[in-house]
């Protein structure tokens, strides 16, 4: 490299000298390209936010708006009239919340059993759990629909909640998590005469909370946004979740009042945004946890 020869000839360190003389074109080019990608990624979301804050009659006017300079909240008032958005939010929150809590508890229990308890068939059972991850929801949806119907739960929120609670990925995450905790904790507890249940309750359960949080955040993000299962499992509008309600609103309104539909979209994004701001790290770690290191 040229820098090495420079370093020999001049006594000053080569790198700062070079950067003083001319800008790092490689870095500038990369930042420009990455900026273009970032604008294309965030631009549509900015447009959505900004257009939802235009008045309905102006919403489709060009040039488009990307910054809400003069926010107008008519569309937000209207979306509450057009759509029972309170009910949709309650349904979505109830479904998502119960799935998240259910997954956190069951995955922590199963993950602990696979990581720390000894029983016959542990390896085989864990392989079966992992294998179920490969089967797409769409393939099992018809029998699940029949089953739910047979249980007398069709067109209820429970039809969305119950089948989503057992989680292979969550179990896998929690097993990894428990295996990462030091083992001498369990040894100390058992020497003190604690039963396996007490060891779990007083030693491991409190330590499991960060891992359970990742499972909960992943479940929340996935099921808050879910569309396919609610589309099939719910029939009456009183059981719709947010994404379903918004898609039907777009169908009903056509292209007449874009900003009203977009106001609904923005409202539905708020919880995801909160998760993004406070739990981004956990979400990224959880999503890529399957990649192994």
């Amino acid at each position: 490299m040229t820098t090495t020869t420079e370093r020999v000839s001049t006594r000053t360190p080569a790198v700062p000298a070079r950067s003083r003389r001319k800008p790092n074109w490689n870095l500038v080019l990369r930042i420009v390209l990455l900026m273009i990608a970032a604008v294309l990624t965030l631009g549509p979301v900015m447009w959505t936010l900004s257009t939802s804050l235009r008045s309905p009659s102006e919403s489709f006017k060009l040039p488009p708006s990307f910054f809400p300079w003069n926010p107008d909240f008519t569309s937000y008032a209207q979306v509450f009239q057009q759509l029972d958005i309170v009910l949709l939010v309650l349904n979505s929150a109830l479904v998502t919340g119960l799935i998240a809590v259910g997954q956190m508890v069951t995955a922590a229990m199963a993950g602990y059993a696979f990581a720390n308890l000894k029983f016959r068939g542990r390896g085989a059972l864990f392989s079966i759990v992992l294998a179920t991850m490969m089967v797409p929801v769409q393939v099992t949806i018809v029998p699940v629909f029949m089953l739910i119907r047979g249980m007398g739960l069709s067109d209820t929120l429970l039809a969305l909640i119950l089948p989503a609670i057992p989680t292979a990925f969550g179990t896998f995450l929690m097993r990894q998590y428990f295996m990462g905790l030091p083992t001498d904790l369990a040894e100390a507890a058992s020497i003190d005469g604690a039963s396996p249940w007490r060891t779990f309750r007083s030693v491991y359960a409190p330590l499991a909370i960060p891992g359970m949080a990742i499972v909960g955040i992943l479940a929340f993000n996935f099921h808050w946004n879910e569309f396919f299962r609610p589309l099939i499992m719910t029939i009456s509008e009183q059981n719709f979740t947010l994404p379903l309600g918004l898609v039907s609103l777009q169908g009903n309104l056509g292209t007449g009042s874009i900003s009203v539909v977009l106001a609904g979209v923005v409202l539905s994004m708020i919880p995801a945004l909160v998760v993004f701001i406070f739990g981004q790290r956990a979400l990224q770690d959880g999503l890529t946890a399957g990649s192994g290191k």
Partner: protein
Amino acid sequence: MSTTTPRRERPKQAAKPAPPGGAPAASQTASGRHSQRWLAWIFLAPTILGMGLFTLVPIAASVVLAFFRWDIISAPTFVGFDNFAEVVQDPTVRVSFLNTIVFVIVAVAFQLGLALALAVMVQEKMPSWLRTFFRSAFFFPLILSAASVSIFMRYLFNEQFGVVNWFLSLAGIPAVPWLTTPGGSAAVVILVYVWQNFGFSFLLFIGGLASIPVETYEAAALDGATGWRKHVYVTLPLLSPTTLLASVMAIISALQVFDQPYVLTRGGPGDSTRTAVMVIFESAFQRLEFGEASAIGVILTLIIMAITAAQFRLSKRFVFYQ
């Protein structure tokens, strides 16, 4: 895995003979083992029963149902391979599978290429606040619902008042009929899908790049590999395990695409953006042909399994593990 072994050894030395029944003399550890087993089954019960009920039984039922004709109202009748024969001959189903395959190839290639290029650019020397900003920006679409994204993208790609065509008109390009022509709709479905999902592959590549030791690059630099040659000869081979993982995950999820085409185009115009999962949905829940829907589902699952197996076989040849 290896972390469990030291733990497993501990009770062995204390309670060597203890048979499952447990001699009373075998003391604490034998009963401890016994209660461990009990606790394990209690802890596993919700997950195992739930998965049995909502995943394993449905898989079996799906396979069985594929050999029956059933509309939920009348009793199911056994029809052998008729469903498969019908499905294979049905022009809509054939077009949908073809669409899905084309979609997977184009979308996955686009997604992986874009994600890899961006990841390499982000991981090289750069102020850390900028790196954090780019990572968050590219990750952001993943937290949105595919349905909501498709709702606003449908407006953005509108032929008359859409923002995309407005920008194109600034460059003198006449309005593109995005959602009303077969080629246009296919392009929109791919663009919207990749827009939302490239961030996931990007994260995987970032992780893979971070695990390549710096010394490898230093050694390559001494041998004269700089700039893009460094990436061709060092980054790509060392990144191949990540690339394999990213492509398997991207292909499996692209094969199941539903939300975007359903909201953006409802599969149209004609059948031009109808996908395999849309056909499952329509034959089951709109035409009440549950047997046929199951047959399509079985075919889709077999394709997914075959692709996964093929990729792992290929990986033995081409993937370079350190």
